[in-house]
C-alpha cells in the first residue's frame, strides 16, 4: 500500500515537472519581429509623426559634422580675405556687382524685345508690311536728306 502511494506520488511529481517544463517552453516561445513596413504604414495611416532614437542621433551627428565643416570653411575664408578687406573696397565691389546686374537685366529685356520682333517676322504678311513701311520710310528719309543737302548748298552759295 505504502509503495503504491509512493509510486503515485512520484508519478504526480513527474507529471507536475513535465507540466511546468511544458508551460515554460510555451511561455518562452520567441516573438517574431514585426516587419518594418508595419510601423511605417501604421504611422502614415494614423498621421503620427515618429522620429526614432537612432534617426535622432544620426541627425544630430550629421548636423554637428555639417556645422563644424561650415565653421572651419568660413574661418579659412575669413583668414584668406581679411588682409584685403576694407569698407571702401567692399562698397566699390558691391556697386560694381549692382551695375553688372543692371546690365544683365537690360540685356535680358533687349533679348525679350528681339524675340518679339523675331516672332513678328515669322508671319509673312507682317514681314511684307514691315518691309513696305521700311522702304517708304527709307525713301522719305533719303528725300529729306537730299532736300537738306540742297538747302545747305544754297546757304553756302548765299554766303
Amino acid at each position, binding site marked *: 500500500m505504502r509503495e503504491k502511494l509512493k509510486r503515485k506520488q512520484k508519478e504526480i511529481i513527474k507529471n507536475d515537472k513535465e507540466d511546468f517544463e511544458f508551460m515554460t517552453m510555451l*511561455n518562452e516561445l520567441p516573438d517574431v519581429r514585426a516587419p518594418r513596413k508595419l510601423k511605417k504604414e501604421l504611422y502614415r495611416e494614423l498621421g503620427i509623426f515618429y522620429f526614432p532614437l537612432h534617426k535622432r542621433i544620426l541627425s544630430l551627428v550629421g548636423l554637428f559634422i555639417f556645422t563644424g565643416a561650415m565653421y572651419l570653411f568660413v574661418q579659412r575664408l575669413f583668414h584668406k580675405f581679411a588682409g584685403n578687406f576694407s569698407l571702401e573696397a567692399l562698397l566699390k565691389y558691391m556697386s560694381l556687382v549692382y551695375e553688372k546686374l543692371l546690365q544683365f537685366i537690360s540685356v535680358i529685356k533687349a533679348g525679350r524685345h528681339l524675340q518679339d520682333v523675331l516672332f513678328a517676322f515669322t508671319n509673312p504678311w507682317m514681314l511684307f508690311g514691315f518691309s513696305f513701311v521700311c522702304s517708304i520710310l527709307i525713301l522719305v528719309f533719303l528725300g529729306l536728306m537730299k532736300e537738306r543737302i540742297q538747302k545747305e548748298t544754297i546757304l553756302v552759295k548765299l554766303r
Partner: protein
Amino acid sequence: MKEDINVIKEIRNGKKNEFAWIVKKYEDRLYSFVLRMVRNEEDALDLTQESFIKAFSSVDKFDERYSFKNWLFTIASHHTIDFLRKKGKISESQLVDKDIGKPFISHIDRIIADERTKKLEHEIEQLPENYRMVILLKYKEEMKIEDVAKIMEIPVGTIKVWLHRARAQLKKRMAK
C-alpha cells in the same frame, strides 16, 4: 519608466504621437500572436495593423481599470476570429483554400534554433484555432483564464476544458 496607462492618458489629451510608444512596445508580441493564429505573414501584417488602428481610434473607450495589453489583445483576437471565420466560409464555399499546401516558412522557423521549440511551434500550428488561441493567450501572453474567457467571449468552464484538451494534445504530440 513609462506605464501604459500614463501613455494612454497623454494620447487622450491630444498627444497622439505617443501612440508610437504603444506600437513599439506591442508590435512584435501582437504580430507574433496573430501570425501564429493565421499562419500567413501578409494576413498577420494586415490584421496587426488593423488592430492598432482600431485601438487608436477607440482609445477613448478604453476603461482604465483594466489592462491595456488585454484590451489590445481583445481587439486583435476579435479581428483574427472574424478573419478566420470569413476565410473558413470562403474556403468552404469555393472548396479551394489557396493557403493549403503553401509552406508556412515564417520568421519563426528562421529564428528558432532549438529543435524542441521548433517542434512545439509546429505542433501549436496543428492545433484547432480555438485551442491555439487559448494556449497562446494563457501561456504565451500569461493571461488569466477569466481574461481569456472575456477576450474570446466564451464561458470560463469551456476555456478550462479547451485548455486542458489543448495541453493534452500538445503533450501527446510532443512525446511522439
